[in-house]
């Protein structure tokens, strides 16, 4: 049984249809990235999984449970957590408060403080600045906080959306390294949306290419990197 299975999902915003019958599945521990131009439907897929975008038809299954139609706040409790596009940290709250909020779905306070320690270990920066208002931190620090916050719900699956947006390459690299570490050490499955095709192919095991709300190509990341289509259009190679 796959960890996550999306079957023939149609979804959209208002009159616009963003996904025209998309199907894909993720296995436990996999790292999958979604590739495509702006508006191809990458973010819509993660938003469908996290419950922010309702499906019009099709099904979403997680660990054998059908979750399409569930409210976003319920889905978090299953172990799906999202690092949203634009980070969406709570700017007028401290780093610590942001992290605490990440653990809203957890009841066990011991587990909570253990997680907090682990997050602080992964991102020492956050430990140093735990009393600082999130809105006053740099973009990179806020992205670390967004990732750290998503870990606070002890997720099985992390959906990340445009981590690299507006950040210096070194910082981005740092954050992806941490995500890969989480994948290796905690066994967390990753579904990543990444605009930077090169990066997307590098950090993932496998990859789906989207165009106008449809998956047009899928395969292992190294094979995809070699494919004509990807190289020409997304890696901008000659």
């Amino acid at each position, binding site marked *: 049984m796959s960890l996550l299975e999306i079957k023939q999902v149609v979804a959209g915003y208002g009159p616009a249809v963003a996904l025209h019958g998309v199907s894909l599945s993720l296995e436990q521990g996999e790292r999958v990235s979604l590739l495509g131009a702006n508006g191809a439907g990458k973010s819509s897929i993660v938003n469908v999984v*996290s*419950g*922010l975008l309702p499906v019009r038809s099709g099904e979403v299954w997680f660990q054998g449970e059908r979750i399409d139609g569930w*409210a*976003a*706040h*319920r889905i*978090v*409790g299953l172990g799906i*957590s*999202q690092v*949203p596009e634009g980070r*969406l*940290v*709570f*700017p*007028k*709250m401290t780093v610590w*408060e942001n992290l*605490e*909020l*990440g653990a*809203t*779905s957890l009841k066990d306070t011991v587990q909570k403080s253990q997680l907090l320690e682990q997050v602080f270990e992964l991102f020492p920066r956050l430990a140093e600045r735990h009393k600082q208002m999130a809105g006053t931190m740099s973009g990179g620090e806020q992205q670390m906080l967004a990732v750290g*916050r998503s870990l606070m*719900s002890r997720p099985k699956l992390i959906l990340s959306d445009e981590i690299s947006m507006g950040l210096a390459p070194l910082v981005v690299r740092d954050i992806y390294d941490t995500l890969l570490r989480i994948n290796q050490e905690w066994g967390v499955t990753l579904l990543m949306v990444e605009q930077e095709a090169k990066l997307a192919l590098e950090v993932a095991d496998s990859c789906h290419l989207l165009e106008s709300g449809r998956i047009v190509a899928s395969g292992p990341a190294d094979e995809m990197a070699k494919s004509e289509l990807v190289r020409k259009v997304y890696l901008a190679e000659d």
Partner: protein
Amino acid sequence: MFMQMAVTGLVLGSIYMLVASGLTLIYGIMHQVNMAHGVFFMLGAMATYYATEVIGLPYFVALFAVVLVFPIIGAAFERGIFRNIRHIWLAGYMATVGVWMLMEGLGWQVFGTEQKAVSFPITGLIRLPGGAVLPANKLWVGLIAIAIMAGVYYLVGRTALGRQLRAVEQNPRAAELMGINADRAMAKGFALGVTLAALAGGLVSTLYSVDPSCGSTPMLKAFIIIILGGLGNVTGSVIAAYILGFIDSFGGSLLGYQAGHFMGFGLVILILIFKPSGIMGDE
């Protein structure tokens, strides 16, 4: 006379702060004005009146009953009316104005036209240096108002519920991704705001009188306070409440009611010209 003016200003400020607290909270969380705030103030006052003067419960037991009952009334109001329309500013405004008018009109039919009094259990007069006097009930209501405000600060600033409320206020979508039921959090915030209004009614009614319109004037004052303080900012509304208390006291005593009022509003307008978002508002 100076001492008396200072004491009166402090007492009025505390009362204003208490009345404005629930309104600030609801605005802060939902970014929506609740024009029915005065109705809950009035209902709190009426409930206290009926519990003490008609049923015969001790005053503080009645207040406690208000604290128990009004969260339910607030949540029901939020679920039944407010939730459906809170997305649109004008709709929320109009609908709550409708509730205000309806409830006030209904109140005169249900509660009768005779103005009522609720007596505070602690009576007497405290003589202060400088020839000032302070009725004991005003002192106690002022102190309780400060205690309630401290409670609000603690709840919003330090508890998990407070964090959730602030998260919903800052970004309801992100709050959902944290596992927070944004609708339910707003309902809780609304219920809390309504309870604060009712509690203010139960306390302030002991100083003045109770009738179905008794919430309107305090509510309008509370609106001035939350605008002056910076919409939704709790600290701002505390500062604004005391500013208004001192304006009313010093203005009324030194210049007479009309001139004092005129000067007071002039000052409010002046502050807003230089800081349109209010004293503690975001730019």
